């Protein structure tokens, strides 16, 4: 069975997975983030929130819908340095491929690389209770990995 749309009450959906990579760019002093998910998951999630994106690949950066997407991604992926203020991320763009993979690309405001940050990665969890998000933080070529589920959508990352 494959289900291409969220089903209410019955968890029939076959994806529910998002994967983020985050790295601090020491030349530009920003965090760079990519978040990969499934396009139809995100479209359905937005529809459930009352925003009909249609086919997301048709949305331009100048469209109002782009700002809705940016807001949603920012709500679903929040980075807060310990004892600091929430980092602000800008959605630089996104890509959709024929495998239905949707990847968002974000950059933070100029900052420093923090030793400890709290990360909330609950993108799409409110629509899909089985959603599981995973993240790799890349530091000096080494990867640190964290998993987020609905019951534990906040994790601390220490370098």
């Amino acid at each position: 069975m494959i289900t291409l749309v969220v089903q209410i009450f019955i968890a029939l959906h076959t994806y529910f997975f998002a994967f983020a990579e985050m790295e601090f760019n020491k030349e530009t002093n920003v965090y760079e983030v990519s978040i990969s998910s499934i396009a139809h998951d995100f479209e359905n999630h937005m529809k459930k929130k009352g925003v009909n994106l249609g086919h997301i690949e048709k949305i331009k950066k100048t469209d109002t819908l782009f700002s809705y997407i940016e807001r949603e991604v920012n709500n679903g992926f929040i980075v807060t340095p310990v004892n600091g203020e929430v980092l602000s991320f800008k959605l630089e763009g996104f890509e959709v491929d024929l495998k239905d993979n949707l990847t968002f690309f974000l950059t933070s405001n100029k900052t420093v690389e923090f030793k400890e940050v709290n990360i909330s990665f609950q993108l799409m969890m409110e629509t899909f209770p089985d959603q599981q998000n995973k993240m790799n933080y890349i530091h000096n070529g080494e990867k640190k990995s964290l998993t987020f589920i609905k019951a534990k959508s906040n994790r601390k990352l220490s370098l």
Partner: protein
Amino acid sequence: MRKLIVLFVTLGSLCTYGQKEYNNNKFKQLHEELPTPNVYRTASGAPGHEYYQQQANYKIDVVLDDKKQTISGKETITYINNSPDELGYLWLQLDQNVRAEDSDSKLITVEKMEDFYNISAVQRRMFKFDGGFKIDYVKTTSGKEMSYAINKTMLRIDLDKPLASGQKISFDIKWMYNINDRAKIGGRSGFEYFEKEDNYIYTIAQWFPRMCVYNDVEGWQNKQFLGRGEFSLPFGDYDVNITVPADHVVASTGELQNTNEVLTAEQRNRFKKAAESDSPVFIVTQEEAEEAEKEKSNKTKTWRFSANNVRDFAFASSRKFIWDAQSVQLPSRKVMAMSYYPKEGNPLWERYSTKVVAHTLEVYSKYTIDYPYPVAISVHSDRIGMEYPMICFNGGRPEADGTYSERTKYGMLGVIIHEVGHNFFPMIINSDERQWTWMDEGLNTFVQYLTEQEWERGYPSRRGPAYLIANYMGGDKARISPIMTNSESIWQFGNNAYGKPATALNILRETVMGRELFDYAFKQYSERWAFKHPTPADFFRTMEDASGVDLDWFWRGWFYTTDHVDIALNNVKWFQLNTENPEVEKAWQKEQDAKKDKFVGDERNKTEIKQTKNELDEDLNDFYNKRDIYAVDKIDREDYDKIKSRLSAEELELLNSNKNFYQLDFENKGGLVMPLILRASFIDGTEEVIRIPAEVWKMDNYNISKVFIFEKEVTSFRVDPFLETGDTDLGNNAWPREVQPTRYDLFRERKMNENPMQRAKRAQE
């Protein structure tokens, strides 16, 4: 670096692992995990000489009420007890009860207040639907009430007299239920309402009380239907009369028995033509379907279908259906591939659906068994994909303007291949879906991948290639499950039950076993267990038994753990044989010394110090100042002659062969032992690929070294150069180290405001 090779074995290094209290070696056989073979299931993975399975035959009359959206039915079930056991009671499935008000699936849903983030979320939560079976009666065929009890999604009939081995019993059940609106409450079946024209498409499944499986593994199947773990059903023969509005077209499991009563003469002629055609022929055209949509008949028609040796029965009904069909010639038989879809499915569906069905039957038949049923049907539904014997409901709807994106096209092709493929797993090779999702979804997704690749070169398959599973398998393991986890308890259902097993089989085929051995064993499994009830052990054992390859380590790692593949190339040491020839060795040493990095002070002194003291005064230079350490003297030559006199001609030749020895140190960081695939690139631009079986890890599962001997100098090594093992960290696969780009580095912004078909249309305007 150049070192004299000393040949000795460090025996101590052979016995460093897993010798304490318990054998944790990754190559330990699976005897403790797999059930003991017996007369029903053999150690070879084949059905045993006393294998049995039950049979349930059904005669059903069902009425679809298009005004009330209800199903009412009466069935006579004949249950044949082929087991050696006496049965005091019978269990049936009542899947519709998953939508009953008191269903467990609602009760066990975990919720938080933030789930109710807007009014529609609250509305959905508050939505009331009177779902579930309303059982009118359970009677003997002579009309006597039978005692029964309903336990949520299951119904138990208590027999007055136990059903002895070899005996059969027939009984009648009458029921009805309200059909669910899929758009509102979801579900594998239900109806879709087309508000503009006030019409419905019904996709009807799990619609009658069905016998549970009773077998040597579980006794009676006793897991409730909670919504995720699908079905476990015995085979049987079905005669089903489906009464629907007279202007409806019905697609169904089985063969239509009364074409004269439900099809026009023209439609019957078209059907005959389709049966001889290798491309789709319309039986109901779009114009005819659109005409039928305009009015609603108050009359009814009864469509009669018959299906033999199937484990379930489903149907679809609508006046909106366009219907096309073609013949598919398989090695042993001809089959009809058919599609039913509304105008909303075009132009995608008339172009692709039936051809994809035909292609799927051909490819799956090649890798498993010849498709054994007379028809295979793809029915259009808005977005879901769901399978039943001979019929499946598939999404893929173009946009209202008749264009569609590539994503929609490939999504539709993929879902049709997948759902038609389910005819093989689990409809024919009838595993217990409620226990093991991977046995049907994983195996099916694997053959789906093979089928997609034969449809179109470079087909964008979502699952199958090893590299696609890396993000899921690597990193934090806190919330992923082994594949061998019950269907209801799986974290990450899609990746765990579809993607990972499909990837594992692909790796077995491409890397571990090779295509020939794998394909033979996989076909053997399919043939052995067609129309039977296989378990995981039957699959694992057959794949080993038919291929002559011990795969216990592979099943253990990929199916019983959450380990991942991350093999690091930690270190490379380069050696050449010391020829002992002073002419060669001293010249080589001179060359190496000349290549060494120079200290900055020494370099500056060459010019800054115009003349040193001993350059001014020759008398200061003694023997040591004048000695040429690279010069070959008489003693060097005599020593070399002595060495040569002790060596045979072959040894001498080897000594002078100028071979390059490379010791590579590998670390298994992810825990999954896998074959080592290594590409060496040489100084002259050529390459060599070396494939080493996973057993290289058998003594030490985590750290090994291996020496490779080459004629030429190596400039680089790369582990897993063809991305065939699912290695989660490619950054530690190369020597010299290569920096792997992150996805952000690869980002190139590409966006389109319209799909390519819309753009092409605009260009023509």
